[in-house]
């Protein structure tokens, strides 16, 4: 499933029906704008993550 398809409401129902797709954090982030799906997690910790 392409990134663009995941964005659409129709694809949401498709995704719930389909049995053979891969879901990762970026999929969830695109569906839920409150979540970032970022790889840089150090923003507010005491130590800084490597680039």
């Amino acid at each position, binding site marked *: 499933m392409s990134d663009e398809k995941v964005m659409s409401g129709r694809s949401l129902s498709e995704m719930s029906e389909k049995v053979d797709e891969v879901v*990762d954090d970026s999929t969830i982030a695109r569906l839920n704008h409150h979540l970032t799906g970022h790889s840089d*997690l150090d*923003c507010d910790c005491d130590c800084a993550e490597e680039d």
Partner: protein
Amino acid sequence: MIVPKRIDKICGVPFSPETRGVRVAPLRGNHYYAFNYDQPSGVKLLRGSIARRLLRLVAEGSGVPQITACRTREDLALAKHRLLFVKEDPSLYNPGFNSNQKSFHIWLHVINGCNFRCFYCYIPHLQSHIDPALINKYSMSEETARAVIDGLLAFCRQNRIPRLHIKFAGGEPSLNLPLIESFCKTMTAAAGDTQVSYGMISNGTFSTEKIAPILTAYGLRISISIDGFETTHDRTRFLISGNRRVGSWAKVRGNIHWLLANGIRPYLLFTLTRNNASSAETFASWAHSHGLGFRISPIRLRRAPTEQELDLLLRCTSSLYTRLGKEMPTSLDFERDARFAEWNLQKRKLAACGSCRNYVAVSEIGEIRSCQMSDQQGYNFRTHTLDQALQGFRQVPTTALLAQPHLKTGACTECEYYRVCVGGCPQHTISVHGTSDVPSPWCRLYGTLMPIYIKAKAEHMLRQISALCR
């Protein structure tokens, strides 16, 4: 000092002597989850033909499944998600490390004093329970602040580093808010093309009326240390009034509520000890019910934990993360809002942190140190450039492996879990074992918790996707 080379000389048998590779396991219903310990790129949820294909590939041998070429939709999806190595197109699997440095981070000790005296504090030579009348004595001067600003901006420009993050710390940085405000004002005005952001690590006892304008004016993100819930927090974090200990929970909780009511969402830092481990679940529920994220870090003392401490922390963290997988609100980000130590499942790491590469600490007198736990001397923004300090760190034995973590060869690097935990906090390991090229003192905790944490993350993802598709 003689340092044992093998993991089994330090903490029993290695956690996972298996070949580093892809793991796939059932979750619920017809869902599976997969994670690649060789090339971490996040947890993946699978089902249907793709799950069946990966299960078959993994059953054929250990490590990372390999094929010559992608000929099916299933193989293409697995390769795209880095769960399958395709010999004809290896770039799909290994994107390599980005050699362009994007950001630099500074832990800035604006004051070497604190109104608390937490028993585990790792800041070298910190003046604790300081007299408020002596704040200036322990604070960074305006002259030193200017030297730091000039040095940092020159470094970023010369090395074409676009982003600089300043983390105000101490001691307790909010004891000297005027200096922080002045620093932000001067830095922001001088930054030019360098994108500067700010953060602060506080014990949460600040005056909200005084701190809020600074947070707002400079977009300064604030992290607050909370070590337990109510009484367990108060046992570690307290003020001294006369001869009496006055716990800080009520004040900190009140300040957090004030910040939330004024549109500011702090991030919480929880140092896990044997004194507060049993309250971690209560704390987590409280934080998440307020939409607050946190990071949990095992305590970093200059000695190895006892077996009893390891057992207790392991029991409490295993229970906590298992519960979070099942109950943590789906509106929150599992890895950010329930972070553990320096783990990041999203990418392959060389080291737990960027110390000596894209991260240094600066003392209140301008000394440039490998990190906030270090008391090394030798470089100062008043007399050296940051480039000189970083070059020096590569040559000094105690920091050479921090600056060049790819040179590590110890037993730790053979562990299946190495590319997630990467040996834990290197400065902590140095402080206990004298080198960062051996397993962390918390190795047994890390190795046992990691599969539990990954499964919990998968459980949370499944609940998220179910909620979003409802």
